[in-house]
């Protein structure tokens, strides 16, 4: 009779590579990673959410993880240099750097960092994010921070996609009420569930963006166990705020602007007070086609 040895739990003899413990973000900061299909409005959502947290009196740090480094643009009103640009300037002698070289104060005291990254198709975005977190930690920038928001790049699923998951408590997924972005969301859910086995990261919820209706999203949520935490209609003020290089909180307080502001504030409040980890089960590709069809 043959018997199978008990397989040791992960981490003992398994091939799963764990993150270097010295780069963990610690000490109770709420870490949120914002995911979603490319072009869906992650940077806009992240920046407005950062601004909302700061309005609630939190110390916020936003880390843009996209090589195109425009995540924090509406907070700082300019394109700030990336960590990789700055590291190159000092020949990667990070000891020479001072926080003001790579961290910039934006709207209402939000601290902004752009990790930057390799050009598309080369290098590793995950390495860049890792270096950024290390640098922030060495300069004690994570110690007295209440909320850290990672604005993740949308188009690639690689190290750059996975690295923020190692630090985050909760993931937000930004999606529109259309098949493509929900399809992308489904894949993101699968990736997060895989990571959640070894890391503290959990699904926070869905941000419905730029959509009048949410029927498709609702259908998907019901099947998978996800929940919508905030809903932004296709409000022109959000588009205009980006053109004006500012957050929604700096716009003329018209009725629709106030409504959007309140929705961001309530999202920030939910995240800091009553967020619950969701146990969502991603669909197989076939199932999602059957569910949402091609309409």
């Amino acid at each position, binding site marked *: 009779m043959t018997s199978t040895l008990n397989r040791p739990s992960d981490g003992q003899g398994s091939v799963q590579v764990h993150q270097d413990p010295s780069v963990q973000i610690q000490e109770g900061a709420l870490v949120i990673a914002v995911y979603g299909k490319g072009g869906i409005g992650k940077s806009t959502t992240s920046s407005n959410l950062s601004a909302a947290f700061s309005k609630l009196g939190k110390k916020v740090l936003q880390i843009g993880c996209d090589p195109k480094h425009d995540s924090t643009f509406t907070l700082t009103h300019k394109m700030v240099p990336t960590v990789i640009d700055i590291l190159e300037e000092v020949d990667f*002698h990070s*000891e*020479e750097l001072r926080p003001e070289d790579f961290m910039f104060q934006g709207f209402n005291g939000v601290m902004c960092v752009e990790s930057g990254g390799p050009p598309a198709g080369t290098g590793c975005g995950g390495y860049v994010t890792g270096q950024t977190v290390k640098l922030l930690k*060495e300069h*004690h920038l994570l*110690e*007295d921070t209440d909320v850290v928001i990672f604005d993740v790049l949308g188009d690639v699923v690689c190290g750059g996609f996975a690295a923020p998951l190692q630090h985050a408590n909760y993931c937000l997924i930004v999606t529109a009420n259309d098949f493509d972005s929900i399809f992308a969301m489904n894949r993101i859910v699968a990736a997060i569930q895989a990571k959640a086995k070894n890391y503290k990261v959990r699904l926070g919820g869905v941000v419905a963006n730029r959509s009048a209706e949410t029927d498709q999203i609702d259908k998907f949520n019901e099947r998978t166990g996800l929940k919508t935490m905030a809903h932004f209609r296709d409000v022109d003020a959000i588009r205009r705020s980006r053109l004006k290089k500012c957050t929604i909180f700096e716009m003329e307080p018209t009725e629709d602007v106030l409504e959007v502001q309140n929705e961001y504030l309530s999202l920030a409040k939910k995240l800091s007070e009553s967020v619950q980890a969701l146990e969502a089960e991603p669909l197989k590709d076939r199932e999602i086609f059957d569910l949402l069809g091609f309409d």
Partner: protein
Amino acid sequence: MELTLWTYEGPPHVGAMRIASSMKGIHYVLHAPQGDTYADLLFTMIERRGERPPVTYTTFQARDLGGDTAELVKGHIREAVERFNPEALLVGESCTAELIQDQPGSLAHGMGLDLPIINLELPAYSKKENWGAAETFYQLVRGLLKDKVDGQTTHDPRAWKQEERNPKVNLLGPSLLGFRCRDDILEIKKLLNEHDIDVAVVAPLGATTADLLEIPKSDINVCLYPEISESTCNWLEKNFGMPFSHTVPIGVGATKDFLTEIHKLLDLPLKPNNANNESKLTWYSQSVDSNYLTGKRVFIFGDGTHAIAAARIAKQELGFEVVGLGTYSREMARPVRKAAEAIGLKALISNDYLEVESAISEAAPELVLGTQMERHCAKRLGIPCAVISTPMHVQDVPARYSPQMGWEGSNVIFDDWVHPLMMGLEEHLIGMFRHDFEFTDGHQSHLGHLGAGKAATDNSSLTESQKEDKAISESVNLDSPIWTPEGKEELSKIPFFVRGKVRKNTEKYARQAGCRKIDSETMLDAKAHFKG
């Protein structure tokens, strides 16, 4: 990281040891293999301490790696706490132990011990000793004080006025294995007391955890050694609103600036200077005999703080010409670059002692101000040298009072720098009078046992004068002019430290003028040519 025979700084856990040993009632459990205990010697041999550092090593061996090293760590932590009963425990690992990833800090936190535990994460492969010391001091201060941060930064540095008491300051940064910290503390205390400013907490050197808790009660912090205490001072400013001083009072000018800055931060009117209390350096600089120092070429290398201070003293207070300025400290690269640019130099930022040695040899200074390592290479090059910065040798930890800071510090610096220079003149006197009939062979200059008369066959045992002579006699190649015996003798009368330059210039002139031979007349012509 690179392999080297010699480094300016140790790994970061040595920095942590410096903080632990500097303080009272702290114990450091260091997860490290057997060999890493060597660092104890730095404290017993160089600082000549009466006790070993308060460090417990886990000293794991090869066979432990097959077992449970985490249990080994916990056992040592338990024993250390029972035996030493510390007020706070530092837990960390050395470079080798970092690779095992036992996370001793987390282990210690999980043991339910009833004392503050500071988990030190010191990346051994990218950071060095001073960074490790600064980080340890920061984590210790923050660990003990973070619960007292109330979000209200209403600290008023002028509170001493309403409370009708003397202003109170903390001196932050002095540590063991720092440069003359013990005496700097006394000197700065004396200086501040003369201005009716009290010193409350001095840390880390001599401080207890109870002292660290008192830090926010003072009016301002004095950041004496930025390498060690700048990050802590920044944190205290951000979280408690305590301003801190940035001027390091080394040299007469910097001491004056320091007093001005402290008074401004405290909103205290500065009393007019009492000439008796001031340094004697200014008096000496005005003396009739002092001008022989003027224009001496000096090369400066050390930690950031001491190198920048030395450059200022050399340039502004002694009238030296600074021909090189650099540091091994990457963290201080920026201010050093700025200081170098201000005097028209490009700073040398390097932790490769061979690179520093070749820069010194290239700059051909008359005096080297450096670390223990520059003393070695200055000796090899036959150039006078004074040590101004760590890393240092036993002889740089003198028994007598010899601060670097404040008025007395300026006196000490003046003596330390000028003595080797005056001795250096002897070398050229030996050169000048070597041909005198009264001169006995075998005279030794201060530059060692390389006495001028010693029969020498290889360059390593030649004096500078002899090396020059040798170079001249060997320089017979086709396009070089030939030195006549008369010309050679004339050249040998020229002080050794400028002889090389005179020889090159004379040969250049001879080539331009089409002379094949150089005699005393050619030399005079060349001199006239370059002067005109």
